[in-house]
């Protein structure tokens, strides 16, 4: 069995694809950790849906401010040049196509780019959606970051989502702990795989139709 990437390695990989000058929203959970791996010598603008642009890292212990939090309601800082704005402006940034990239977690992503990440559909689950649907349809590029398989070994990259949808045909790339996929109207193209994994093995794990990119980059996550 090939060695899966850990969460830090996945975050490192995603961070490599965020160019200088990009306006970026990082979703709650795993995507938030991407911030820790962005290059310090580049200006990258992090947007937080609760009304911050130019969001900085977590404050030093004792410097937390209840009124300076991120979308996950955790304390953050504001970089020099950062600013605050209200909710209508914040979602105009998303819906209006002003964000270059958003990175979201997912329960499932279809090979065509449908996203399911807000609700398991379980009858007793309390639904909550927040900004997920706005981000999914609003950002110029939507990246998903997720483990490829569930704990029971089922692929989260699917032909058709069984969970309730967040957005249709909105995801352009999926970063997982085993491979990176570009999603198109014709389906998923594998662009990178971890060392030790073959394309046939990957097809077997996912059970969905996959195509390999002309140059399939092996990658160890460093």
């Amino acid at each position, binding site marked *: 069995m090939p060695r899966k990437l850990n969460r830090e390695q996945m975050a490192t990989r995603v961070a490599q694809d965020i160019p200088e000058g990009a306006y970026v929203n990082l979703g709650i959970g795993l995507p938030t950790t991407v911030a820790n791996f962005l290059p310090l010598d580049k200006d990258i603008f992090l947007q*937080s*849906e*609760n*009304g*911050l642009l130019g969001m900085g890292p977590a404050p030093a212990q004792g410097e937390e*401010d*209840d*009124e*300076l*939090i991120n979308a996950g*309601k955790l304390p953050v800082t*504001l970089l020099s040049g950062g600013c*605050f*704005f*209200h*909710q*209508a402006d*914040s*979602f105009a940034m*998303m*819906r209006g196509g002003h964000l270059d990239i958003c990175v979201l977690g997912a329960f499932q992503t279809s090979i065509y780019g449908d996203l399911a990440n807000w*609700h398991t559909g379980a009858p*007793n*689950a*309390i*639904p*909550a*959606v*927040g*900004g*997920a*649907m*706005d981000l999914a*349809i*609003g950002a110029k590029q939507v990246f998903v970051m997720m483990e490829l398989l569930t704990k029971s070994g089922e692929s989260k990259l699917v032909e058709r989502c069984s969970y*309730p*949808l*967040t*957005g*249709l045909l909105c995801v352009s790339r999926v970063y997982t702990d085993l491979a990176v996929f570009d999603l198109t109207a014709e389906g998923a193209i594998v662009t990178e795989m971890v060392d030790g994994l073959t394309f046939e093995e990957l097809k077997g794990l996912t059970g969905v139709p996959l195509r390999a990119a002309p140059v399939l980059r092996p990658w160890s996550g460093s």
Partner: protein
Amino acid sequence: MAAQPALNTSMINKTIGSFGEAVADIFDGACIMIGGFGTAGMPDQLIDALIVQGASNLTIVNNNAGNGETGLAALLREGRVRKIICSFPRQVDSQHFDRLYRAGQIELELVPQGNLAARIQAAGAGLGAIFTPTGFGTRLAEGKETRKIDGRHYVLEYPIAADFALIKAREGDRWGNLVYSKAARNFGPIMATAAKCTIAQVGEIVPLGALDPEAIVTPGIFVQRVVAAPSRDRANAA
């Protein structure tokens, strides 16, 4: 150019002496917008006064459904809320909402956060409805009218207006002009526009002219009452 001093500056005074007076006329069955994202921007002292005042059967518009035991969570705990319109009710500390929801004792209208903001803004701006791309093709748009405009799909959504808005700001003046504090701004400015009566809890009431007119976030026309709440943070820090 500096703002000119207004004439008759003693005439209009929207400041109210106490939280109890500020919320005295909130009636049973009212629709109330409450600012805040989690506890940031939550007008907790206005909510405390509302709990004492006793209005019930309320419809609440907020991003969340209460955190912990204070503010909106306390209002829910006291059984005053019939319906909540929000985007993200489920949280680790939303136990009072969770209990009411599972017991079928509260109605939930779940709205994507950007649609919530846009619908509130639409009400404040006097629009009859909006077409939004958010939610198209999902369960949250089921049964709603849709339209294809320039090749893109949109969902028809109606404005959300309220009888009252309870919001929190950093400073206000007696004409109702407001500035906010950091990420506690969130829903305050748009909710202020969408309610018949907007009541602002402010950290400090400042003299007219003290707020930079270039930096006023909410113009006083959108605010009916201003109540001073000396910041608990500042009290703690002192």
